[in-house]
C-alpha cells in the first residue's frame, strides 16, 4: 500500500513538478531539504494529495519537520486515511 502511494507521488512530482517524466525519485530521497520540491510547489503537492487521497495537509505542515521524503508523506497519508 505504501509503495503504491509513494509510486503515485513520485510520478506526480517527476511529471508535473520537475517536468522530467523519466525521473526516478526514491522513497527515501530527500525532496524538500534537497531543493527538489521548492516552496512554490509544496502547495501543488498538498492539493494533489487532497485530490487523490482525500487527505488534507495543512499549510503549517508544509515543511521539513513534517515530511522530507515520500515514505514519510505516505505514512502521513495512511495514518489520516484510517481515521
Amino acid at each position, binding site marked *: 500500500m505504501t509503495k503504491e502511494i509513494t509510486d503515485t507521488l513520485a510520478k506526480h512530482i517527476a511529471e508535473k513538478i520537475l517536468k522530467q517524466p523519466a525521473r526516478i525519485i526514491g522513497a527515501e530521497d530527500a525532496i524538500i531539504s534537497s*531543493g527538489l520540491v521548492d516552496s*512554490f510547489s509544496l502547495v501543488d503537492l498538498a492539493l494533489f494529495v487532497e485530490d487523490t487521497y482525500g487527505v488534507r495537509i495543512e499549510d*503549517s505542515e508544509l515543511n521539513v519537520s513534517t515530511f522530507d521524503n515520500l515514505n514519510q508523506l505516505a505514512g502521513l497519508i495512511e495514518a489520516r486515511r484510517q481515521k
Partner: protein
Amino acid sequence: MTTFSARLNLHLERIPDQVAVILQVSGRDDLPITYSQLLAGAQGFANALGSSGIRSSEVVILILQHGPGLIHSYFGAVIHGAIPSIMPFLTEKLSPERYRADLTALIHVTRPAAIVTYAEFEQEVRAAVKDGDSVRAVICMEDVSPEVPDPSRWGGLKCTPENTVLLQHSSGTTGLQKGVALSHRAVFNQLDAYGQTLELNKNDVIVSWLPLYHDMGLIAGFLLPVLFGIPLVLMSPFDWVRAPYRLLQSVSKYRGTLSWLPNFAYNFCARKIRDRHLEGVDLSSWRAVINCSEPVRPESHQAFNQRFKDYGLREGVLHTCYAMAENVFAVTQSDLNNNPRVELIDREAFMRDRIVRDVNGGSSLKVMSSGRLLPNVQIQIVDENGHVLPERVVGEIKLQSNCMLNEYYNRPDATEKALVDGWYLTGDFGYFSGGELFVSGRKKDVIIVGGRNVYPQDLEMLTYEVPGVHAGRSVAFGMFDEEQGTEEVVIIAEGDAEDEMGRQKIADAIRQYVTTNSAIALRYVKVVGPKWIVKTSSGKTARSANKEKFLNELKNNGHL
C-alpha cells in the same frame, strides 16, 4: 520638506492610538500595533543603538524574520538617525556557509556599524564578522524592550531631507553588494507623487505579504502606509506561499483596498486556492491590485479575474506599475479608472525591427501597458548610441526624477556607471504608445523568477563547483512558463557521464548545489555530452542560442 522622524513624531502627537500595522503570523492571533506602540518598540532599539555607541548616519543591518522585532528595529534605526538595511534571513533552503559568505561580502562593502538579529543567530552573525571590520555591535532583539517614546532624544530629528535614510539591497547574489541609498527627500517625493496618482485617502487599507527586503514590499507594502497613516495588514511571505488564500481572507476581513503583487502571484492565487478557503470571502473592498516587479501579462489578470469574480472582485481593479529601487519605487502606474491597455502588435516587426505596428493579418503579440508616468518622472527611450527614439519604437528606458537614488552605497564605480548627466539607464527595454509605457524586455540576461532578479552568470559559476561538470561549459537561462506566469530557471551543463543514470546523478547534484547556494529553485536541469553548448566566436556562452536549441529539443520530443 519633511524627514522620516519628523513624520513619525507628528503621528505620535496626532494619532498615537491609531493602528499602524496589523501583523499576521500563521497560527497566532493577529497583532495590532498602534503608532505609540510602534514608536515605543522603536525607542527601545534606538536606546540600544545609542548605548552601543552607534551614531547618526551609520548603517545598521537587520537580520530578522517577519515579526514585531523587524518593524521596531527598522524604525528604531530611523529615529536614532542611523540607516537601516534589511538582509533576508537564512532559509532552510540556503546553505549556512553560503549565507555567511554573502553576509561577509555585504559587511565588506556596506560597512555597517551594527547588526540586529536573534540571540540564537548571534554566533552565525559573529562568524561572518572579521577582525578590523566596521561592525562594533551585534544587538540581540531579545535584549531590547519597549521604552516610552521620547522625541527629544531622537537623533533622527536632526537629519536633513538630503541625508540618506535607508539602503535597499537589490536581490540576486551579484546585486547583493549594491545597496541603493535613498534620501528622505527622494522617498517623500516618491510617496507624494505616487500617493497622488493612487488617490490615497483615509479609507484605504493596504494588505501585503511581500518581503521587506524587496523594494515593492519595503516601499509600497511598508513605508507608504506607515508614513502616510494608512493601516497596513502585513503577513509573512513564508506563510503566504504555503497558504495563498490568506491574502484574500485578510483583504475580506480588514476591508483591504490596495495590494501589490508580482505577476506570478496572480497565477498562483488563481490556480492554488480551494473554494473551501474562500467561504464568506468578499473582495469588493479591493480598489486596486497592482501588478509590478516582473513582466506583466494580460493572461494572468484574466485568470485572476475569472477565479475571483464570484467573490466580489470588481471588474477593472487589476492594474500595472513599472518600478525600481533606483527611483525609490514606481515610475509609471496604469489609470485606476480603466483596465490597463492591451495592444495586439505585429510579431515580426517587433522581433525583427523593434518597431511596434498594429497587427494586420500575420502573427500577433499581446502586450500590456504599465501605464502613464508619475508626475515627477521623465523618461526617454534611447537607441544604443543614446539617440532618443520616437513613439512605438523599442529602445532602452532612461529616466530622471526628483526621487532618484543618492548613490550605490560605497560604490562610486557602480554609481558613475548607472547615472549619466542625472539620468539613470534602467537596462530595461520598452516603448511609448499613446503616452503609456510598455516594457518589453531587458538588456542584460537577468532572469526574473517570482519577482526576484537572478543573474545567470552566478548560477553558471555555481555549477562549475559541482564534480563532473566541465568548467566553462554550462548555461543558465529563463524560460517563461505560461501556467505559472513567471520565468523558470533552466540549467544545461556538459558533464562526464557514461550513461543516462550518470547524467541524472550529476543533474541532481547540480540542482541541490545551486539551490542551496542561491535559494533559487531550478525547473529543468539537463546534463549533456561534450560540445552541446553553443559558444560565440569569442568563446562566450550564447544564452539565447542555447535557449533556442533547448526549446527545439523539447518541441521535437513532444514536451512543449
